[in-house]
């Protein structure tokens, strides 16, 4: 089945220790997103790739970076995690189909910062 995969599902890192979260998709969608979600709140968009074009949200901290080496893979790098970065990180994809923009989410990576 076509899907969005996130690894790992659970990640524990130390304060200030860089961490990378990964996302892959078999949907062949051209748009990939990274969201941060805390405590049953709505997902907060960090950035997205439209094809190879990177689009950063204005309020996304510089501590968060992303890479998309090819259509299928996208990475979220947190350079120096703080305690406030503990959250669920969600990857999503969509296909540019005009006005629909349905997004398909992965299962998320739960990040704990100790």
């Amino acid at each position, binding site marked *: 089945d076509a899907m*969005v995969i*996130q690894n790992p599902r659970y990640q524990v890192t130390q304060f200030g220790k860089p961490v990378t979260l990964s996302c892959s998709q078999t949907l062949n969608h051209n*748009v990939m*997103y990274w969201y941060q979600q805390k405590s*049953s*709140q*709505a*997902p907060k*968009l960090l950035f*997205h790739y*439209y094809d190879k074009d990177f*689009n950063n949200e204005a309020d996304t901290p510089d501590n968060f970076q992303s890479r998309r080496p090819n259509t299928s893979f996208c990475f979220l790098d947190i350079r120096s995690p703080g305690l406030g970065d503990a959250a669920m990180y*969600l990857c*999503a994809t*969509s296909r*540019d189909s005009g*006005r*629909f*923009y*349905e*997004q*398909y*989410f*992965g*299962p*998320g990576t*739960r990040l704990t910062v100790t």
Partner: protein
Amino acid sequence: TQLLEQSPQFLSIQEGENLTVYCNSSSVFSSLQWYRQEPGEGPVLLVTVVTGGEVKKLKRLTFQFGDARKDSSLHITAAQPGDTGLYLCAGAPNYGGSQGNLIFGKGTKLSVKP
């Protein structure tokens, strides 16, 4: 800036009861999606509504898009414990260049007790 006001924020009901969740905005959306998210998982797309006045049914769930495409509702008939989760509405902005970014409501946390 387009906003989606979602209500209620929390809902705790008994099995068998009916409920309605609302999403309202002063802005027009080209489409609106409803997602359900279970604890520890990513949101799952339930439905997309596109046409003003559109009604879609998914078993016991009924989704409606307002005539002016500014609001939407989700009605669940005879709720079951399996309906428990976070319900999110998300609208696709009605302007070009949005690149698929969705405007999320803050979510409705539904708990259905047996």
